[in-house]
């Protein structure tokens, strides 16, 4: 284990640097700036609720931009490494597959954290220019977004190991992310329905994470810290997807 941790770190650092050097990362950064700036226009139209709209709209756009990049990256990275034969140079060395997967996942999460930090800085600068301070629970909202990205990124890695293309991984992970925001509604429908429909909905509750847990600013008063359940849920889903991906990659031939 002591010998393998530097390998995890090497893969993570290399993956992070490759992501940051990727031209798509620059495009996403430009898009993020444009999108956050667009929230200023929405804020102006909200008249007396400008601060609230500006902060909520900006946070939502930041999360969606980071999500789009994280999904794009996670769905294509293993496929690309196999196609370019880079993976041959890795797995012909004494690199355990769990270490490689953990490093790749850590590299993706570091990239997501950097994206959120840079976009958050841009957003706060715009808020300051409009004469507003830091919105309540702002840091918690960013932490919540990062937890969500952790869950969805590890899930996308898992899916990419059995799906036939990067597009199918994107679609499946996108559906997973969307459904995760309707956990409460799914639970309500499961309670209201009966028979096979109820069973299917109850199964869906267990198979889809409750991503609403990570929306810090949805809490009453919009100033609450994330509940411990959010951290536990993120850890459980990330670990579950990682273990699933590890099971698949351990059997995979290149």
């Amino acid at each position, binding site marked *: 284990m002591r*010998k393998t941790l*530097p*390998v995890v770190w*090497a*893969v993570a650092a*290399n993956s992070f640097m*490759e992501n940051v*050097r990727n031209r798509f990362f620059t495009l996403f950064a430009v898009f993020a700036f444009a999108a956050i700036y667009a929230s200023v226009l929405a804020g102006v139209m909200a008249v007396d609720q400008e601060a609230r709209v500006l902060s909520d709209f900006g946070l939502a756009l930041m999360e969606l931009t980071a999500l789009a990049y994280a999904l794009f990256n996670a769905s294509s990275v293993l496929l690309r490494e196999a196609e*370019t*034969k*880079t993976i*041959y*140079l*890795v*797995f*012909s*060395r*004494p*690199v*355990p597959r769990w270490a490689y997967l953990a490093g790749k996942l850590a590299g993706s999460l570091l990239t997501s954290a950097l994206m959120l930090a840079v976009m958050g800085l841009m957003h706060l600068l715009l808020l300051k220019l409009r004469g507003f301070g830091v919105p309540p629970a702002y840091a918690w909202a960013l932490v919540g977004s990062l937890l969500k990205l952790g869950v969805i990124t590890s899930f996308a890695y898992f899916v990419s190991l059995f799906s036939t293309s990067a597009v199918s991984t994107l679609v499946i992970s996108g559906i997973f992310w969307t459904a995760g925001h309707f956990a409460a509604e799914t639970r309500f429908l499961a309670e209201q329905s009966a028979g096979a429909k109820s069973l299917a909905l109850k199964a869906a509750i267990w198979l889809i994470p409750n991503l609403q847990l990570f929306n810090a600013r949805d809490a009453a008063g919009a100033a609450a810290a994330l509940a411990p359940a959010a951290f536990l849920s993120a850890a459980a889903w990330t670990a579950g997807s990682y273990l699933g991906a590890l099971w698949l990659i351990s059997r995979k*031939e*290149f």
Partner: protein
Amino acid sequence: MSQHAVSFAGVEKTYRRPRLLGASYHTAIKDLSFEIPAGEVTGLLGLNGAGKTTIMKLICGLLFPDAGRVKVFGHSPSGSEAKSKVGFLPELPYFPPQVRPSQALEYYGRLSGLSGAGLGAAVEAAMRKTGLEPHAGKRVSEFSKGMLQRLGLAQALLHSPDLLILDEPVSGLDPLAIHDIRQLLAAISAEGRTIFLSSHSISEVEKLAGRVLIMVRGRLERTVRRAEWEAAPGGLEAIFVEAVR
């Protein structure tokens, strides 16, 4: 050290390709048995689809055999004992275009368990051996095919492996680059390392190898020693053509 660097005993590998309904199967190698003696240069010849790359991937632990047994220095090729002794150069290796050669080598050195001053020295030595030192300031995007191949060789040599597996090491290179790579491989062989190389260029294999395995449709058709092809009229080429026809 085991007397044989590599041994195959009754190895079979079949690829499964999923289809809309069911799957199709293609047997790449069948009932394959051979040994690669330690410290020698062994060549692997065969037409496209003869199973050359499959053999190399099995030795590197990238593929798993369906039947039979593969051993690398007496160990399973999937284990770290075997992998730490193997350096692999795949055909047309890829490196990120934005990095400098030393950055790429440092990454692969870390994956091989090197760190600190040892890593720096290994990178320097691999660049010197492969003639990359004058190009240290360039980015990979500025590299020619020959220089990329040298970088590929450098990553395979980083951890001073006992066994070098080279898949088409001179594929697509110009005559000068082929000459330089040949010189380099001869120097590595003189250090007592085992080299196993596949190539479509019979003359290259003829110049470097002491023994050649000829594969035909997934089976080992012939094993030829240098003395045999030197004595044969038409040399190795005539033996190869006769074997594959």
